[in-house]
């Protein structure tokens, strides 16, 4: 049952930052410091941490959107870093991403139909008619309509745009979807809709999620396993229940204690 679909071993990624007077000096920032994670097929692995903990860098490095300094990312046994451009592109069909900001991540000059269909075009999946059919089916599945294909992103609300972003990622029928704070920019009511949609789609399409979030309440609902990051390091990882009930690391304990509204109001 427990097939590991995506595994990252000892990832290291450093950025250089200008420092000192007039920025003449440089300092190295370790965004990922020996990070290892593994994602089980059909499950959701949440990566939690505060700003600057390296969780978004991890997301980008998993998909090879940023080169690693060292370490390997294994997808179905293949090391992604060693793949050539065309081979990597072929594998990427199986690895998709849903971005945080539904306002910035959709090209404002493209129609929604083109945005969702672009992946099919690039990977040359089916002829034009088949592609359109797939796009329409996907849009309907995420709660949009066929007519929405002709619209531009600005004509949609934040929640609807996030649905477009999800349709764009899922139309290729990927195996792994990396969601980088997919609901942080949304209202709670919309957030609940999108979380449920993600869960439904996971069951239907046998998806595995890497779910990046800073909101521990959201994570509790969607994740099976958790990785807690701080300062580029993994400080704790394990099953959701274990981490929430018996956090071992001090940082995890602080994070959990800081969740607003923990003292439930029951009048």
């Amino acid at each position, binding site marked *: 049952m427990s097939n590991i679909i995506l595994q990252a071993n000892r990832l290291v990624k450093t950025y250089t930052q200008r420092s000192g007077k007039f920025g003449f000096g440089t300092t190295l920032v370790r965004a990922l410091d020996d990070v290892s994670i593994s994602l089980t097929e059909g499950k959701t692995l949440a990566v939690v941490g*505060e700003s600057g903990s390296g969780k978004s860098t991890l997301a980008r490095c998993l998909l090879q959107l940023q080169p690693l300094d060292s370490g390997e990312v294994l997808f179905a046994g293949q090391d992604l870093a060693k793949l050539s451009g065309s081979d990597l592109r072929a594998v990427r069909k199986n690895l998709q991403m849903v971005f945080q900001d539904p306002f910035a991540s959709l090209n404002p000059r493209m129609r929604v139909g083109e945005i969702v269909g672009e992946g099919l075009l690039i990977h040359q999946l089916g002829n034009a008619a088949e592609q359109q059919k797939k796009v329409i089916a996907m849009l309907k599945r995420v709660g949009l309509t066929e007519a929405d294909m002709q619209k531009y992103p600005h004509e949609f609300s934040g929640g609807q745009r996030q649905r477009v972003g999800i349709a764009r990622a899922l139309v290729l029928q990927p195996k792994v979807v990396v969601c980088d704070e997919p609901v942080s920019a949304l209202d709670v009511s919309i957030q609940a809709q999108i979380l449920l949609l993600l869960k439904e789609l996971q069951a239907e399409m046998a998806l595995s999620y890497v779910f990046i979030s800073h909101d521990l309440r959201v994570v*509790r609902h969607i994740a099976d396993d958790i990785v807690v990051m701080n300062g580029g390091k993994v400080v704790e990882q394990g099953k959701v229940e274990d981490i929430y009930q018996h956090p071992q690391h001090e940082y995890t304990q602080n994070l959990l204690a800081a*969740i607003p509204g923990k003292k439930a109001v029951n009048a």
Partner: protein
Amino acid sequence: MTAEMNEARPLLQLLNVSISPKKTPSRLLVNDVSFSIAAGKTTCVVGESGSGKSLTALSVMGLLSKQLQLTSGKVIFNDGLLNGKKSAEQDLTLLDEASLRKIRGAKIAMIFQEPMTSLNPVLTVGYQIGESLTTHLGLKGDTLKAKIASLLEMVGIPPSRANSYPDELSGGQRQRVMIAMSIACEPRLLIADEPTTALDVTVQAQILKLLDELKTRMNMGMLFITHDFGVVADIADNVVVMFRGEIVESGTKEEVLGNPQHPYTKALLDCVPDAEGKKPLKPIDYAWLKNTELKESGLNEDKGA
């Protein structure tokens, strides 16, 4: 509303406030909103984007955008004793810009959501905190410096950081600077518009605690705008729930969160993920809500009053 609020004159009373665009006065963005805030208490206004919660807050300060107007309503401010003599109640909506300017920052202060964009990047934080002290209280020189230092200390920033520029501070520190600025003249009322939304949870917890302490110490009234029920549970005394420009429910925190009456409040609470993960998420079914609302419209009128 509640017995507690009646015993003393509330600090701030919004009476039947309605706001609309100037071009289309019939389209009410905020419709007949009334609630009050007592000194030393926190009233949270909760709602989704577009519910009119921020507009309501801006109308208190007379800071509505030029395209908008207050179609009706009063904003009664009663700051109690001032300079030893009893100051009368004022309707803020009737004041001219000059009188409003005397109140803003001095008696009513505001904290905004974005600590990154609300500070001037080319002025030191010390200067920015000192600005309202000079304007409203006429402080200068060493007294001013000492006051700035003590304010920074109060919000948990080393006084030596007075010479820092905003970009040298973290998000949480910038929000602390904003708080120091807002409480500099010891306002009677603090309006906080989603002050912790842009911050990490641990920093958010610190800022909420700080605001709560300051509220108690200075006996301020606080109008706190948020969409996060977790934050409401932590900080509110009274809660006002807004939906499409109207108040659908209001009462004490225990009443509204513990025993919500309006279908919208219930639905909104159902979409909040709880920390235990036991409660299933239930998104709001707006079509259902509309029908239920029509059926229970009696309840609606009752709560608006």
